[in-house]
């Protein structure tokens, strides 16, 4: 089974037509890959479906806007993969994913 990062990278490559080999764990989805908010909606849909979760994008955005988090925490892909793993673990534990 491929890693969470591999699955995310493949989704981004397919959704945004970005060469797969340019997508690294250290890549920032916005700053490095140039993914805009509309494309990120498409990516979020694909990730939600692939992992059976609901990524709390609004909560994350609010945290960034409020200065409580950095975009790197959510949009550097290795970090995004960690967040997704946490959401999957929470779902499997029956604790929900927040909103």
């Amino acid at each position, binding site marked *: 089974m491929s890693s969470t990062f591999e699955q995310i990278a493949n989704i981004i490559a397919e959704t945004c037509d970005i060469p797969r080999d340019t997508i690294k764990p250290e890549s920032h989805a916005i700053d490095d890959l140039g993914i805009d908010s509309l494309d990120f909606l498409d990516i979020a*849909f694909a990730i939600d479906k692939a992992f059976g979760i609901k990524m709390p*994008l609004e909560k994350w955005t609010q945290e960034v806007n409020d200065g409580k988090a950095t975009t790197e925490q959510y949009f550097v892909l290795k970090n995004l993969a960690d967040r997704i793993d946490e959401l999957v673990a929470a779902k499997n534990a029956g604790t929900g994913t927040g909103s």
Partner: protein
Amino acid sequence: MQLDTFQLIDRIVDLNLDAKTITVEAQVPATHSIFQGHFPGFPIMPGVLLTEAMAQSSGWLLLGLLKFERMPFLAIVKEAKMRGFVSPGQLLTIDAKLEHEGSGFAVTKAKGRVGKDLKCSAEITFGLTPFPDPALRVHMDAMANKIGFPLEGMTHG
């Protein structure tokens, strides 16, 4: 269908919040200036308007699911397929269902039929935002009443 004001849905036939589906009717006008150009001698509904009709149908479904607390705005249209001609005077029936509700967005699938014939289909993504202006909320309430939206049971904020 009020083409001049882009109000394409005439009547909500069924809204099932448990199944997350909606069925609406849209009566294509028998005459309209659009058909003079689209096309002379062969008037048909433009595909962009069929797509808009599917989007508006999905929008009413989402308004119901969101209890009118947020407004769905069209963001992405995928796999829009115009499968057959829709002519002036025909009654279009559109079914839409929620495919996915994400954080701040939702995805629907919609199909338009004339009689039993499938005429169009699409997967549509909406951004969900608080109403940007109170006047829009008032307008949507008025439209909901006009097209028979089952408002009873909805929690209005």
